[in-house]
């Protein structure tokens, strides 16, 4: 194996070993809140497009699924680890965001639903942002 490849593998291993298991620090939880805020805010943007009929069904369905999977990943990672009391609220927020994004993925053409999801996702984003500080 060439040197860059070896370094690449080594780095990839290091990068992955950082996730999952173990105990979460305050700082790591903060990062998770930031990640949730990002996903919720992005979901709200997508939902906004649906509510106004300014996007395509396929795009919304596919992209919302990627976002929802990321939210679920956060939930799984955090629940697998131990950590301070905020850990619970990370889990709860992540699961709420996941559910809404999942709904957006399944009903990408429901404008009324999308309008409601947008408001909810914006609220989650704001809540996560507050916690991330």
């Amino acid at each position, binding site marked *: 194996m060439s040197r860059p490849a070896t370094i*690449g593998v080594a780095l990839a291993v290091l990068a992955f070993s950082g996730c999952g298991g173990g105990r979460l620090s305050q700082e790591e939880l903060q990062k998770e809140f930031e990640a949730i805020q*990002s996903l919720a805010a992005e979901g709200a*943007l997508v939902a906004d497009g649906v509510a106004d009929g*300014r996007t395509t069904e*396929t795009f919304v369905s596919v*992209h919302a699924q990627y976002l929802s999977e990321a939210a679920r990943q956060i939930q799984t990672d955090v629940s697998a680890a131990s950590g301070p009391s905020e850990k619970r609220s990370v889990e709860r927020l992540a699961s709420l965001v996941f559910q809404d994004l999942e709904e957006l993925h399944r009903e990408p053409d429901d404008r009324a639903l999308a309008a409601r999801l947008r408001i909810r996702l914006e609220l989650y984003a704001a809540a996560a942002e507050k916690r991330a500080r």
Partner: protein
Amino acid sequence: MRKIFQIALGILAAIGGFVDIGDLVFNIEAGAQFGYQLLWVVVVGVVGIIVYSEMCGRVAAVSKRPVFDAIRERLGFGVGLGALASSQVVNLMTLAAEVGGVALVLQLLSGLPYRALIVLGIVALAVVIWVSPFEWIERIFGYGGLALLVFAVAAIKLHPNWGDVAYGLVPHVDTPDKLVYAYFAVGLLGAAMTPYEVYFYSSGVVEEGWTPKDLGLNRANALIGYSLGGFLSFALMITAGALFLPLGIEPEFIGTVALGAQVPLGQIGLILALVGILFAVGGAAIDTCFSGAYNVAQYFGWEWGKYRRPAGAPRFTVAWVVLLVLALLVIMSGIDPVMLTEYAVIFSVVALPLTYLPVLLVANDRAYMRSHANGRLANTFGLIYLVVILVVAVSAIPLMFLTHQGQG
């Protein structure tokens, strides 16, 4: 008329080569994290690629020697082989990332499963390369990639604070995350100056049989082509800075890039963005694939060229087919194309000096270049950028470590 068509070579290299998945990822992420603060780095990167691609094109037109010939001649067998191995690893990573990008965009357009689209994408690329003449590939992907101009409109419609945008062109650091800032600066430079662009471009110059008469065209290609590429980088970063930064969105998906055009421009913006990304990334996939084949053929002295029929340069043909198959395996493993892109760009930065030093040396050799050797301007810029590249190459991997790939 012929001239106009030939400028398309520059546009292909600019859109398909300049704006590839690396530029999309780093410009959007940098904009979302630092707003317009890093715009100046794009300028530095664009000037760098203009300087070196002009040099590579000139060397190729005058001496008929593409970049990897120069690398082996000047660095010798051993170091040259190291340069070959590292550039092939980076090429493969980049190719796999671009193929993944093509599949993701196709998925966002069609809703079909991702893995099926990877296979479809690879097959489509192979067929396009196999059957169409180079000029066609050039035009299809070059002009298709121009749909990315939708991001210029998007950036304007998002009403960025133009004062802040202008201030971004002045180098300044206004953040507590200085390391993350440095990481993105390195990534943006790497994305702008990716070496496969010059491998591809210089080989194309030799294939087209350019002579010193075409040096004006070479200069125009480098200047116009890469400036256009830089303009698109600006548009992407401004879009992200105006839309994603205030909302705290950290872009992790190709779809997020397209969202940047959908929010201000609606459905038409979304479609144009997806089509533009598809063509830019697809064109870049072809460029990287060929670069890999060019490099290995040139290092070992094999016959090469895509103007010949595939059987005219058999080992070259085998090389690009093998690269496509390897890329298929890499991306089918399920690795995230966006993350792979980041690794590819950062590693390419490490390999930069081994590419650009020999070019600078050869461009000064009058036995090769006769009266077309580097002038004072090209040498001054060439040397300045060599220093920049060295600094960036040394700091790239430590920065990636320290910032967890820009996560802080």
